[in-house]
C-alpha cells in the first residue's frame, strides 16, 4: 500500500506536468506584450510594393515570420535612424530567432526613396532589412489602411528641401499575418525583443 502511495505521489505530478506542457494553452500574446496590443487582432492589410531586393514585397510572402512594419524615409534625421539602430540592437538580442523576424520599411517619400537608395540605407543597419516603395497613390493607400500619418513640410535644412512628418510607431504582424502590436517610438530594445520573442512562440 505504501509503495502504491509513493509511486502515485511521484507519477501523478509528472503526468500532470507532462499534460500541461503537451496540451497547455499557447500563450496569448496580448497577455504579455510590453508594447501596445490590439484586441481583437485584425488581418494586416495586404500590399504589394517594389522591394529594395529588386522583387515585389508583400506581407503574404512573409507569412510564418513575425513582421515589423515601419513607415519612414531615408532622409529622416530624427526618428527613423534611431528606430533602425534600435531594431539592429533588437536583432542582436534575438540571436538566431531573428531569422524568423522580417523588418519591412515602407517609405513615405517615394520621390527620393528608390529601391536602390532604400537598399543602401537599410543595409548600413542590417542586411536583412527590407525596404518597400511604390507609386505615391499606392503608398498613400497602404498608409490609409494602417492609419499612418505622413505630411510633407519644408525642411529647416535647406539641402534637404523638404521633410516628411510621419507616424513613428512600428506595427508587429504575427506569423499568421495579423496585426498584434504597436510599438511607440522610443520603446527600449529589451521590450521590443521581449514582444517579438512572445509572438515567435505563439502557435499557429
Amino acid at each position, binding site marked *: 500500500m505504501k509503495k502504491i502511495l509513493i509511486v502515485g505521489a511521484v507519477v501523478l505530478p509528472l503526468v500532470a506536468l507532462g499534460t500541461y506542457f503537451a496540451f497547455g494553452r499557447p500563450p496569448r500574446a496580448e497577455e504579455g506584450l510590453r508594447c501596445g496590443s490590439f484586441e481583437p487582432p485584425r488581418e494586416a492589410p495586404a500590399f504589394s510594393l517594389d522591394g529594395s531586393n529588386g522583387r515585389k514585397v508583400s506581407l503574404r510572402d512573409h507569412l510564418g515570420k513575425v513582421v515589423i512594419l515601419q513607415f519612414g524615409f531615408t532622409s529622416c534625421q530624427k526618428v527613423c535612424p534611431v528606430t533602425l539602430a534600435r531594431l539592429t540592437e533588437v536583432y542582436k538580442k534575438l540571436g538566431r530567432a531573428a531569422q524568423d523576424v522580417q523588418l519591412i520599411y515602407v517609405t513615405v517619400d517615394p520621390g527620393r526613396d528608390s529601391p536602390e537608395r532604400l537598399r543602401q540605407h537599410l543595409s548600413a543597419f542590417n542586411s536583412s532589412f527590407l525596404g518597400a516603395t511604390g507609386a505615391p497613390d499606392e503608398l498613400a493607400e497602404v498608409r490609409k489602411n494602417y492609419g499612418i500619418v505622413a505630411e510633407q513640410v519644408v525642411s529647416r535644412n535647406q539641402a534637404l528641401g523638404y521633410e516628411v512628418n510621419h*507616424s*513613428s*510607431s512600428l506595427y508587429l504582424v504575427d506569423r499568421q499575418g495579423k496585426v498584434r502590436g*504597436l510599438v511607440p*517610438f522610443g520603446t527600449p530594445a529589451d521590450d521590443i525583443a521581449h514582444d517579438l520573442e512572445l509572438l515567435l512562440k505563439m502557435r499557429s
Partner: protein
Amino acid sequence: MISTAADAVSDVHPLDADGLPIPSRTRRHRLFGIVAGAILTPIVLAAMWPVTFDSREELFEIPKGTWARRMAGEKREILPSEIHLLVGVHNVLKLKNSDDVPQIFGPTLLMPGQTLRIPFTRPSENYFACTAHASGQLVVAVEAAPTWPWNRLSWRVRRMLRWLSKP
C-alpha cells in the same frame, strides 16, 4: 423688556464706531486657527495621501454613432491633445472604437469594436502623429509615481491646474 440681538452681542463684546462687535484676542486666534486649518488641512492631505486610481487604465472610447454625428456636422473631441499617466499607478492607455466604422484614433487605425492597449513602464514623453488634433500630435506624458509628499502635492496641483484650464 424686549431685548434685541444687538443687545445680546453688546452684552458680551464691546462695539466699534460702526456698531459692530470688536473680536476679542481669543476670538481672533480662533478665527486665525480656523482659516489656517482650512488652508493647511487640504495641503497636508494632498501631500500625504497616496496617489491612487480605480484602474491602471486611462480609457478613451469612440462611442457608437460618432461617425454619423460627425457627418451631421457635430464637432466633438474625444481624445485630448495631452494625456498624463503615472508609472505603476495609472500607466495604461486604452483606446476603444465602439463605433460602426474604422476610425483613426490617436496613433492608429482601429476597427469597429477593436481596442488598443499601450502600457507605459518608464517616465517618458511620447509623441504620436494624430490627425484629430490641430497640432497634428498626441502627447502622452508619463511621469514617475509621486512617492514623496512634496511630489504628491506638486502633482496634484498640476493636475488641478490642467483640469481648470480645460475648455
